[in-house]
């Protein structure tokens, strides 16, 4: 007779939290939606990196993608803001409390169409934020209109063809001065996970454009954002390995075949080259390679550009270490003598 087995202690991260502590409400998106897979990857990355859920602020705009923060990490504050205007809300929140880890979740309509203005300025400010675009090239909640990332020649289910060129968010972000730009595919679990973990270690704007097929409105023949299209046209630039600072593993690598990027927190992003000559620290080369790929119908994936040393907006503003939001009154209201001096100067 076997003795009753003690249930195995659940696996926990370095904070002692199990992955359950990172779960959210049940998703109301369509079964098979790429966004659900991305939500899973995000919560896994947060769990594996040992990010306290309470430190995270989930911010989103409007659309299917922007609903998804409800479906992971219920222990984090969240703000479902206005269509295309999440970057400004995120900027305010991070400046109010620099200790927050801001996670922006947006879509292609929310970012590239209505929100392109705020996106552009977010990229050039280098606000510390992980900004994920769940890119399916189509509006879901309004039932299947093209967005500004729809590729030239792509077809809607109704047969309508897109005659306008796509906005490539990665090329744009690199040109604007973004400091961590990656592209991945919701179906590539390994690549996306490593990329998310590296992005979490980045201090500045990490913009990830993740192709995330819409199974209801844009997964058909003729779509360029479908599972089938991505299987054929996904061109990974490198194999990603992420070594977090807390693991402290001295893994050997060959500098001839692997680019090693030391992140702000001391962790390492290692990119084993699949394409000769591609260096993600070369802004100009990254842009020209992206333009080439786009012309050829290829979807380049991987960490396209990284600059781990550029100062973030919080650095540039030289903020005090404590969150501005909770500074005590004596730190923010000058004393009576200051008002007296100001009044004297006006007499």
């Amino acid at each position, binding site marked *: 007779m076997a003795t009753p087995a003690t249930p195995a202690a659940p696996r926990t991260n370095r904070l002692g939290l199990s992955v359950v502590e990172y779960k959210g409400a049940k998703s109301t998106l369509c079964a098979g939606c790429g966004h659900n897979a991305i939500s899973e990857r995000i919560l896994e990355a947060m769990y594996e990196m040992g990010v306290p859920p309470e430190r995270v602020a989930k911010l989103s705009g409007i659309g299917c993608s922007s609903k998804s923060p409800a479906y992971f990490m219920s222990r984090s504050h969240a703000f479902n803001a206005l269509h295309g205007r999440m970057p*400004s809300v995120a900027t305010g929140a991070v400046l109010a409390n620099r200790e927050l880890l801001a996670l922006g979740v947006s879509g292609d309509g929310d970012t590239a169409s209505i929100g392109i203005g705020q996106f552009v300025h977010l990229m050039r400010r280098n606000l510390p934020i992980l900004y994920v675009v769940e890119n399916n090239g189509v509006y879901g909640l309004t039932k299947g209109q093209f967005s500004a990332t729809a590729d030239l020649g792509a077809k809607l289910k109704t047969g309508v063809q897109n005659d306008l060129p796509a906005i490539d968010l990665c090329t744009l972000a690199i040109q604007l001065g973004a400091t961590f730009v990656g592209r991945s595919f919701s179906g590539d679990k390994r690549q996306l996970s490593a990329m998310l973990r590296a992005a979490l270690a980045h201090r500045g704007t990490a913009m990830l454009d993740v192709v995330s097929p819409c199974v209801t409105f844009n997964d058909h023949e003729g779509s360029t954002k479908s599972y089938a299209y991505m299987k054929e046209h996904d061109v990974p630039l490198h194999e990603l390995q992420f070594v977090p600072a807390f693991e402290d593993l001295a893994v050997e690598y060959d500098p001839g075949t692997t680019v090693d990027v030391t992140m702000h927190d001391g962790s390492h992003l290692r990119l084993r080259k699949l394409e000769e000559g591609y260096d993600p620290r070369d802004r100009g080369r990254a842009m020209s390679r992206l333009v080439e790929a786009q012309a050829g119908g290829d979807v380049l994936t991987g960490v396209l550009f990284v600059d781990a040393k550029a100062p973030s907006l919080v650095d540039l503003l030289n903020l005090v270490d404590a969150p501005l939001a909770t500074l005590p009154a004596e730190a923010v209201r000058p004393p009576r003598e200051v008002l007296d001096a100001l009044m004297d100067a006006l007499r």
Partner: protein
Amino acid sequence: MASPDSSVAPLPAARPDGGARVNDFSIQVATANGSGSQSSNTVLLRAIFQMGVPVSGKNLFPSNIAGLPTWYTIRASRDGWIARKKEVDLLVAMNPETARDDVLGLSAGAAVVYDAPLALAELRPDLVYYPVAFDALVEPLTKEPKLRRLLRNMAYVGVLARLLDLDLGEVEHAIEKQFPGKPRARDLNVAAARAGFDHAATLEKRDPLVVRRMDRTAGKILVDGNAAAAMGALFAGVTVVAWYPITPSSSLVETLIGHLRRYRIGPDGKATFAVVQAEDELAAVGMAIGAGWAGARAMTATAGPGVSLMSEFAGLAYYAEIPAVIFDVQRVGPSTGLPTRTAQGDVLSTAFLSHGDTRHVLLFPGSVEECFTMGVDAFDLAERLQTPVFVMTDLDLGMNVWMSDPFPYPARPLDRGKVLGKDDLDRLGGFARYADVDGDGIGWRTLPGTPHPKAAYFTRGTGHDEQAAYSEDPRTFERNLARLEKKLDGARDLLPAPVREGSGEAKLGLLAYGSSDPALREARDQLRREAGLDSDYLRVRAYPFSREVREFVEAHERVYVVEQNRDGQLAALLKLDLPAALVPRLRPVPHLDGLPLDARTVSDAIRAEEAR
């Protein structure tokens, strides 16, 4: 065309009082924009102020960097009236483009100091002319033509000092204040003022206007409303400022940035504030709302076009219940047109800014001192009420210089509103973000980053239940709207109360707000003295209205609602608030020419109505 004889033009008709007019006149200076006249006019204003005489200045300027005509009016009033006065007693005509019209618009007997080549004395015989060859006056002072153009304007200050019997020492002191730390500019300007002063000794004084020392400005300050509001924000402990430049609000934030850099950076160089110049007003208010959500005292400043762009965010903040302070320095109209002219044109649209059943808290400062005190209070109210608060100033208040008592240091500690921290959550075991636990319609909130597993909630627009969970349930939505209404209704008792003047016995009520106040007080005096009309006056200081507003209307047969807009925007809000039987008592008095309100406009309109 210049005629040296013009200085001995025929004397105007004998003045009624036959004597001097002491400390009671208005000066209008007509120049070209960008010619340095702003400094000269400020010096003139300050010199009169330093003589102890109540004074006010109005800058009527174009939307332009340089070249277009601009006028500055200075009013000295021994009785302390500081509203704009329409009648011009002394014109300084420096701008060839407008000189003719400026002269033709004067009343008989007015005095004109003018640039001699303009030969204005030929235009009409019933004025007193003082031609001055300004180019010749400043020619010895510098060789630089650009500087000469600027110094011409300081020379007229010297001329006026002599004509008005202003103490030259006060002028020099004012110049020193105008150019702190710039000894060369100071010396040149002093020399120009002296040149004008000396030259004017050759002019025969033939107008009655004089300044005599008084003691009515002792201890007072001179400041514009934007600078006052900036100090309000500073002493409110603002921490996040997001803005987009727009006339007439830009100087508010620019002044604030100067103060923050001076007073809120520690010895280690670290700042207790963040300022971001946003890409547009949508982003500016979005940043303020994001910061308010995360617990900062956050603000933006803008004008009507910016408020329009902030509309959707204002509605979101109303429903999500997020504090933010928005200074609206009102101006005329959208797009080009009269962006540098004043109005109270955003009242109605801002009260209901956004779509759905939104309603916002508005504060109406009526003086520069209230720009300061309400600038402080707005942050307390926003956090207490968890909603955007709009401080509705205008170009007249914001950009013109006003005499004021010094501002009082805030008497109350910061009110950070209902915020639960980790210890509270430990004690309570959790919370419901939008539950009305205190019966005032205001829920408790937590700030992102609060280290407690029950601290988080999901912030979204209209569709949420008490736990902040997504809900489209009709009853839940109705209950939420009713609670928001209760919260706004309760705000009436927290907002600045109206200010009453008068015995309370008059049949006639006057009701106004904001920068109209000085004109209203003077108009009451005119109505009483000139027409025997007694009136009571209620100055509204906030929306939603205090319960006192209804009492005031109930107590008066006719209530004239004076506003600087065409359609009676505040009157429209009153009509929504008051019982139907009281509505016919409201009589709108519109003022809509883009110029600061003057008393005569108000008293004439009311006298005409009362005579019907």
